[in-house]
């Protein structure tokens, strides 16, 4: 029996990519947790990368997040100047490429505590990370 795309199927409705983008456009950063093996992963997928299950739920990751690797992509000033590219590690385990903002690109350090920040709205929304400010974090 082919029950794909019927109501109630784990494969029905907008896919994980579209769901992630829609949430991000509303200022929400969420990742998937597998209800079968209880593991988190990122980027969003239709089935769990660890066990293949389609029983997935969206969860808001904990903050702070840690810088795992970092580089400065060098660019001429007239083309916009240098910018940061980093990989951050979420407390839940997954890593993702992103950019650390609100700090000079070359001042980003591995191990630094950062927190997610959605910049822009709708289809222009981009997830970046910013240094955790003294006085606590927000998730």
């Amino acid at each position: 029996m082919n029950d794909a795309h019927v109501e109630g199927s784990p494969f029905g409705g907008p896919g994980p990519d579209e769901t992630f983008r829609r949430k991000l456009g509303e200022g929400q950063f969420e990742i998937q947790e597998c209800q079968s093996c209880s593991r988190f992963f990122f980027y969003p997928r239709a089935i769990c990368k660890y066990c293949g299950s389609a029983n997935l739920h969206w969860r808001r990751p904990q903050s702070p997040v840690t810088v795992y690797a970092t580089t400065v992509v060098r660019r001429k000033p007239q083309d916009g100047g240098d910018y940061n590219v980093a990989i951050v590690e979420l407390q839940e385990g997954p890593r993702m490429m992103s950019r650390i903002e609100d700090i000079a690109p070359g001042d980003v350090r591995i191990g630094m505590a950062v927190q997610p920040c959605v910049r822009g709205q709708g289809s222009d929304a981009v997830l970046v990370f910013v240094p955790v400010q003294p006085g606590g974090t927000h998730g």
Partner: protein
Amino acid sequence: MDKSLRGSAAIVGVATAGIGEAPGRSSLELLAEAVNGALADAGLALDEVDGLFCNTSVHSHPALSVGEYLGLRPRYSESSSLGGSSFIGYALTAAMALQLGLCNVALICYGSNQRTALGKLAAKGGSQDYEAPYRPRHPITSFALATSRHMHEYGTTREHLASVAISARQWAGLNPEAFMREPLTLADVLNARMISDPITTRDCCLVTDGAGAVIMVRSERARDFPQPPAYFLGGAIAHWHMQVDQMERITQTAATDSGARAFAMAGLTPTDVDVLQIYDAFTINIPLALEDLGFCQKGEGGPFVADGRIAPGGPLPVNTNGGGLSCCHPGQYGVFTLIEATRQLRGECGPRQVANARVALCHGNGGRLASQTTALLGSEI
């Protein structure tokens, strides 16, 4: 010789997904749904799949993107693009791989949302979509991130990495075919233009023209040709990701797996290897490969390459043609590892000839530290 494939393999699970229109779902989401169904049909679990045969119309490296998306660590995979007929070809190569024991559960798969996604961006799915907003300068940024982490975890320095570039240039100086042969100093490398910290222009492979070709025949007739044969002794492929943020550890590649299986097939160990040809897209590739292939301990690759060990006259000759860093790099370098290894085993390399070269290791790295392919060649079986 009875090595017929006839009757040697069978299809035990099938499924489709998203037939017709599947609005809002990407190519890989549909592909994964079909895989989910086929596994259920076969009563198999995802982690039992160890052979991947796939192609898509939208990914640069389909097996890497599909493998990463599904969370597979294939022991054998193929995404030869023969157009729409590729998948029938995969039935043949899957049967070959199964019969040879290169894999035990072969997955042949495809997915596309080309009707509903027509003209839209971000339709292919997968990790590249999620990296794109951050404008990584591929492939350099990925290797820069890995280098930054290797330095952080193990104390590897820019000087260690510069010695890789200097050793390659010393070999190139002995190779009339090499593109860049003038001497390279430590200061030249350290003062070179930074591209994506800590990688400078001299930590990067060249951009050149070039082509290579290799002919293989069955061993039983290998002595019937004018040149002494370089026998294939062992080989393996492995890939665990497409993009570097999906690596379990960015400082450890699937070469740990491809190398171990290639050595096991050949009945050899790293101490048996006389000469190495390693795909050096960036300087970090050499310490990473030497660690993951078992020539030194994890994390020791920096100091290991820094004392002339891999240079002309050193005890572990690496990239005797000058490598991608100094000989040539016409976009994809892998075939040149096979060619230089063969020339060394024949003993025809003149000033750069490694004495008594009987066993050569070739190792390739594809994508962003993603596909790892190892082959061992020998002058005797």
